[in-house]
Structure formats: structure tokens, C-alpha cells
């Protein structure tokens, strides 16, 4: 796993720098916010591109592709795959899925409210909900939150949601590590002459690099 993660890091970096290059060249973003957004965009896209084909990568790319200002960066990073993806994952499909899911959510809510109403009617003023319902409720709430967090998660359920979340967490970690190393790369060269270069920046390396770091 380490070997392929190395390889993916290479592609990630390449794509990231490509994206940054593209975003730098097209416009002249003045504010830091804009630069941050463009960097974040390139990073996310690079991550999604490097990861390959999974649900969340497709969802992320389509979500980012729907905004107008991102399209050029998308084109730069994805290249010819951009057109393919845009053609395949056009809006209507997603919209249909959203519609379907909304129905199921409302139906669930209806049933839960009905149950609550029934229990309250039976037992008077205080609503006593059975513990299984409580547990289920907690779990469902958290599942909903997770669905919102993971890109494309609203359309998944159960074990597939968990597997996508797993994948997403792994790639997020890799992304954070890559950006950290990028940051440190910039830090290193810009550190002053006099001060001792701290061991900290280079000390912590990507966890997925198979490191034999003796200093740590």
C-alpha cells in the first residue's frame, strides 16, 4: 500500500502543481481568499484525480465542475477526461437521484413521527421512545451528518457509505500530508540564513512514506 500511495502522491503533486499553474496563469487573483480557494480547488481535484474511480471522486468532481469559475482549472487538471466526465455525469442524473432520496427521507421522517405520535398518545404528555428507537435515531442522525460530509454520500447507504467514507478518509489524510510537505518545502528554502533550520519541518514526514528516520 505504501508503494502505490507513493505513486499516487506523485500524480497528486503533479496535478496539484498543474492546477496551481493553471489557476495562476488565467487570472490574477488579488485577495488571499481567492488564492486559497484556487489552491484548495486544485488540491481537491488533484486528489480526486489521483485516487481514480470511486463514488466520492466522481461526486466531488461533478460538484466542483458545476460552478462556472472552476471549469478552467478542471480542464487543466483533468484534461480530456473532463469532457468525458461532464458528459457522463450531467446534471439531470444527479437531480433525479436527489429527488428520489428526498422522498425516502421524508417517508422515514413521516414514519418516525407517526411512531412518536402514537407513543405520545398512548402514554400521555411525555414522549417515551423505546431505546432501540433512540439508538436508531442517534445512528441515523450521525449517518446523515456523514452523508453530508462525504462527497456524494447522500446517495449511498449502509455499508457502501462506510466504505466510501473509509476511502475518503484515507485520501484526505494523504492530501493533508502532501500539502504539509509542500508547505515545508516552501518553508525550507525560505528560512533565514542565520537561524538553525529546525528539525521539525523535515522531521515529520508523510506517514505513508516508508521512512527509516532515525532522528525521530
Amino acid at each position: 500500500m505504501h508503494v502505490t500511495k507513493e505513486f499516487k502522491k506523485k500524480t497528486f503533486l503533479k496535478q496539484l502543481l498543474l492546477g496551481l499553474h493553471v489557476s495562476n496563469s488565467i487570472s490574477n487573483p488579488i485577495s488571499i481568499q481567492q488564492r486559497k480557494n484556487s489552491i484548495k480547488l486544485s488540491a481537491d481535484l488533484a486528489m480526486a484525480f489521483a485516487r481514480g474511480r470511486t463514488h466520492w471522486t466522481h461526486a466531488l468532481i461533478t460538484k466542483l465542475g458545476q460552478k462556472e469559475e472552476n471549469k478552467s482549472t478542471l480542464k487543466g487538471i483533468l484534461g480530456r477526461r473532463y469532457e468525458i466526465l461532464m458528459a457522463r455525469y450531467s446534471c439531470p442524473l444527479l437531480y433525479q437521484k436527489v429527488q428520489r432520496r428526498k422522498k425516502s427521507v421524508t417517508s422515514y421522517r413521516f414514519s418516525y413521527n407517526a411512531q412518536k405520535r402514537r407513543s405520545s398518545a398512548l402514554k400521555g404528555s411525555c414522549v417515551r421512545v423505546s431505546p432501540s428507537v433512540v439508538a436508531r435515531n442517534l445512528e441515523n442522525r450521525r449517518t446523515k451528518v456523514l452523508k453530508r460530509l462525504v462527497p456524494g454520500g447522500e446517495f449511498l447507504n449502509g455499508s457502501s457509505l462506510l466504505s466510501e467514507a473509509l476511502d475518503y478518509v484515507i485520501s484526505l489524510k494523504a492530501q493533508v500530508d502532501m500539502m504539509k510537505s509542500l508547505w515545508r518545502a516552501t518553508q525550507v528554502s525560505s528560512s533565514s540564513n542565520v537561524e538553525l533550520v529546525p528539525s521539525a519541518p523535515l522531521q515529520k514526514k508523510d506517514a505513508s512514506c516508508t521512512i527509516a528516520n532515525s532522528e525521530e
Partner: protein
Amino acid sequence: MWKWSSDGMYSSSSANHIFCSSEFRFHPSVPSSHAHSQQKHNHKHKHKQVTVRTHSFLSSPLLSSPMEDEIQPLLNPTTASASPSVATSGASFTALLGLPPNRAVELLHEPTFPSDPALVDRAARFSVFAAAAAASSAPSPEVSPPPPPPETAKKRKDGGSSNGKAKVKKGKHAEEDTDGENKLPYVHVRARRGQATDSHSLAERARREKINARMKLLQELVPGCSKISGTALVLDEIINHVQYLQRQVEYLSMRLAAVNPRIDFSGLDTFLSATTMECGRLTIGNAKVGTELDQQQQQPVWSEVGVSDSDQMNSTINSKRPQIQLQQNQLQQFWHVDFLNTQNHLQPSVWERDTVMGSTAPHVQREEQHSLVGPGAVPLLAFDRVNPVAPPIQSNQQLKMEL
């Protein structure tokens, strides 16, 4: 016996595997263990996965085949309903033999291991859990008779509850549409002792086990989650972790945006090589201390060569020379050396050079020459943040940025 001696017959195509297994059915006189070993011996070196599967229906416990193990985490339960006809067959792997031969060939003759070992890793872990779950259930191995037709298998399943032990196999057909590489569909679920053998509850149990296995994987991944018991709390932790990672990405992108004006990304591949080299060097290991020391001695030579705006780099490098003892500084200087590589270097060549870690002297000298030649080295020196009067080499727009 003559059947098993000829190797060529069974190695030519995968279809033969099916035939040999079906032939095996019709020759019950052949002792199963012997055929077992023979089969194994014949096919072990050729199609290992298939071999395991072809005699899996004989005596092996569930989830024994490595391919099956990989594939199971990727099963999508939502698509299980998409193919009811196969699902209702009810039989396990044996139903494969009932399928039309081309389909079975397709299923059996899978491509090699998926290119993403992350999945393999997960699958391995999943298989551990699943195997543990299966092992905790009915312990006795089952030696099934020749596979009955699917309908009777189902009937047997329903009638199996009459015994004390409900040992039933259920096959579920699920397809993976995203990853075309991992395609095997069958989930073998074994009912535990004293539990309902209803098809619904079996399906539910399989689903629950899958979910629990994934939760375990997630628990391992998210730090600090292994001690927590209970699904909701673990989910809480996972959510927190995902939010934390996303916030970190934002924070890092903000930091990079702050640094960004000084970076000229036109020297793209050099930057890339620099950062990837960092990773690459660390993966190789920090064993090459001696060689790096040599390089540092050559550094004054190199720095004298002088690229424009070299005084900055000289100062940074000369200051770092006293810090030779720290290996990290060696890495930094190395990094500096590489950093001034120009676009003349193609990225793969740099990568290869780094990974080879070959003779270091020509390594440095090559860079010298290139640094002389390349005009692209110059803009990178605008990178130095310490010296605020860094001359804007290439584009003025970065200088307009104010921090």
C-alpha cells in the same frame, strides 16, 4: 487417474477448470482428498485462485479463497436486488456451476489483483474479520455432496432448521459497477447455531456483518477509536475526524496561499522534483549519510559557479554548511541542489536519479552544468522569502502580492 496426469488439458483455458470440476462430480469413486491434492498440484502454479475455488465447495470453510476475500468488501448490497433470479438460486458457490458456462468463466477467470492495494489491504482486513466471524460460527467443516440443483438447495435451507444445527449456505449475487476489476459476486453466509434461517434474516445478518466489518476498519483508521464501543460513538469520532481533516486542508491551503506569491510555478518540474525527492529520499532510507557528506564538500564548487542572484543562495548554503551534522540539513542542501535544476530536467529522469542514489559526484556536476545552462533556474530564486529585496525575475504579479 489418467485424467489428472495431463497438465496441458487443464492449463489451457479456464473453461477447463469448470469442466474438470464438473467431471469430478461424476466420478465419485475418486477419493476426494486425493483429487484434492492432485488438483491442487496441477493447478497450483498456474491458476492459484481458481484452484482454491474449484475445490472450495468440497471441504473448505467459507471465504477461503483469496480472490473472494478481496471482492467481498466491495459488494454492494443495494444491487443485490437487481438480480433476483440468481439470488433466489440460493446455493452457494455450487450455483456457479449451474450458471451458463460463459458467465461462470467470467466469474472464475478474474483479472489479477486489483491495482489498488488499498483495497487489498482493506480486503485482507475484512477477510480477517469475516473469517473470524465465520470461524466462530459452525466449526465443523462441511463436506457437501455433489451440488444439488438450486431449488433443492433452497428447500434444504428452509428445512435445515429442523436439525439442531442450522448450517445453510446462501448465495447472494451482487455486482460491483464502479470497479470493473473486482467482480466476484457471491457472498457466503453461514447461519449460526440456533438462529433463524429465514432468508430475510440471513440477508440482514450478512448486511449487518458487512457493516460491522467496515466499522471495524474505520475504527482502526481513525485514531483513538479502537477503545470506543458502540456504533454511534464511533460514528461520532469518524465524523469529527473527517471534519478535522477537511479543516486542515483549508488551513493548509490558506497557508500555501500566503506563501504562494513568492513561488513561481513556472519552474514546475523542479518544484515537483524537489518535493517528490524529499519523499523519495526518505523512502529509500537515510542510510547514505556518507555520500551526502561528499556532496556537501562539492557544494562550494557549485555555488561558486554562480547563477544569477546566486549570492542569496550562497549565503543560505554557506550558512548551512556548519550544520552538516544533522542529516536533515543534508537533505535540505540536497534539496537546494536539486531545487535549482532547470526545466531541462525531465521529471522522470530526476526521479530515477534520485531513486538510484548512484554516484553522487556526477550527480552534482550534472546539476552544475544544467544550472549554468538553464535560464529557468533564475526565477526560482525569487523563492527566498527572507530577503525581501529578492529581485523579481520573471513575473511581476507575484510581487504585487502583499502579505
